[in-house]
């Protein structure tokens, strides 16, 4: 009872952080600040994972997103933009329509979730989240696991090819 309430509390807190920081991500003028808020946002999402009893995933989230992707982004920002120039408009002409459309999407989806039949199963998740996932990845999901490694390899090769400066 109490646990539920705490988790509720946490949930709303995290949700608030996520939403606010996400809004900052998409609206701040300074792209560097955006990146920082992205980190915050993703970090909070990891918290949500913990609430949902997905500890391993939370760890992955922190490692990959917060640790790798965001850093990568910040590097890219450093490489490409000059911090001094912050006064540039960061949003384009689509804003009004986009707001309308996103609101439409949001309203519809929120509304429709309520009217949708969910076959909720009230049973606990398997114990030892990490172990189970590790097992699954090596057994049932070994094929996508391997394929994903090819994806990463391809992305790496591609990134190298593209990012390399040619000697002309």
């Amino acid at each position, binding site marked *: 009872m109490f646990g539920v309430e705490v988790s509720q509390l946490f949930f709303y807190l995290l949700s608030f952080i996520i939403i606010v920081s996400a809004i900052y991500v998409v609206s701040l003028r300074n792209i560097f600040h955006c990146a920082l808020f992205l980190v915050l946002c993703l970090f909070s999402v990891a918290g949500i994972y913990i609430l949902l009893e997905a500890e391993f995933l939370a760890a992955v989230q922190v490692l990959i997103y917060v640790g790798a992707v965001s850093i990568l982004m910040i590097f890219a920002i450093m490489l490409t933009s000059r911090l001094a120039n912050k006064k540039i408009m960061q949003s384009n002409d689509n804003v009004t329509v986009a707001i309308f459309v996103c609101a439409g999407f949001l309203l*519809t989806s929120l509304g429709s979730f309520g*009217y949708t039949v969910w076959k909720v199963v009230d049973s606990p998740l398997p114990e030892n989240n990490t172990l189970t996932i590790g097992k699954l990845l090596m057994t049932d*999901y070994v094929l996508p696991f391997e394929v994903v490694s090819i994806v990463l390899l391809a*992305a790496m090769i591609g990134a190298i090819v*593209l990012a390399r400066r040619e000697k002309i």
Partner: protein
Amino acid sequence: METFDYNLKLIIPEMFLFVWALVVIVFDISSKRRNSDSVGYLTMAGLAITAVLLYNFHGGISFNNMFSSDILALFFKVIFLGSAFMAVGSSFGLASDKIKNHRGEYYGLILFSTVGMMFLSSSNELISLYVGLELTTIPLFVLAAFYKDKKTSVEAGMKYLIVGAFSSAVLLYGLSLLYGFTGTTDLTMIKINLSLLFLSAGKIGPGLILAIVMIIAGISFKLALVPFHMWAPDVYQGAPTPITAFLSVGSKAAGVVAFARIFVHGLIAFVDPVMKPLDWGIIVAVMAAAAMVVGNITALRQHNIKRMLAYSSIAQVGYLMIGMVAVSELGIASVGFYMFMYLFANMGAFAVATIFEDKTGSSSISSYKGLSKSAPALSACMAIFLLSLTGIPPLGGFAAKYIVFAAGIQAGYYWLVILGLLTSVVALYYYANVIKTMYFSDGNSDLKINIHPAARLVLVIGVIGVIIFGIYPEPILNFAMESAALFALP
């Protein structure tokens, strides 16, 4: 989980191709990128060997139903390999010049993408399907931007990446909802669970619509169905021409397989009259109609042949989807068959465009003036490909269109078929316009075009495919029928 089989035999072709991709890259690097042709030939050989391997190792399910080496997959794998083969074959010109520093990576990425398509076509499960899809597209992002110092190419890469990533996010959102309804990612189980859910609750609710539309939107991006098509002309124009060809055939075929797997296999129940309100068919039918109209009409006034072909391929997908929305055995077979014929004609047309662009640096239609005098064989090939795309018998495109329309009529989509036929008359106009430019106008006749042997091979394959399978489509059609039988449709 208990009865787990690692039937590795089934993925031998994919494994081989992956390894071969590495071999190609390593070979290129180790040979100090000196030899321009041998890498390409090596790649082509690899693709050919994979095809042979495919022939030997298929039939069966492996990896916990994640990898289904069924006949549908086989059919489409042939298409993927074919399009990769032809794309590679027509790349020799630019490999010797524009991308000479990254030849190995170029070919390797094509192979990676092909591997992704092959996995995609075999997957009967959402996760592997998604992963396969990404393996297909991520190398293509890179390939589209492969002319690093050409603005158009980079722009194409960027646009493709944004649109591609966005669409996969949208797709994923839909897939996640699908998972939410059924608690599983296995498509067969999804089918069963959804039906059970529907039967037990009497309804599913609007959330399913959300899921279906999101998935349609996500895949339609890959297919470039109207209104999700707008990236396609820009990307097609900017990307290196063989990659454009590969995009327009291989990647599209991959999208078609994904579509078929998800909708025709997983969500088939909604075609049933009982669940009519949730039917995805009418949405796709409208989109197909829009694709035929917009694609063909916009293609009318294009001056760049790649852009023209891009719009035409948007329209072609519209035709193809007629077969899909027919959701019958004939329909699915017709989709496969259409794709197969489209492979030859479109790859061939792009190959000609590549050859011409390599030689003259221009891809505007008006520069094709009088080509029939300076390069009669080349323009004859082009004419044959374009006529096939129009659907003139006895070329392959006709048989394909015929069967697609037959499926449409059988399913009662009269309006769609009539619209398709009417727009194919419009299509004739711009295809014929190219032919007219090549044949009826006078141009500089001192243009000398030497066709690289590999490209020549590509053209020959294209022409032979278009003609032979146009006249005698029986084997391919039977193949397609067998593959369609997989879905156990009416």
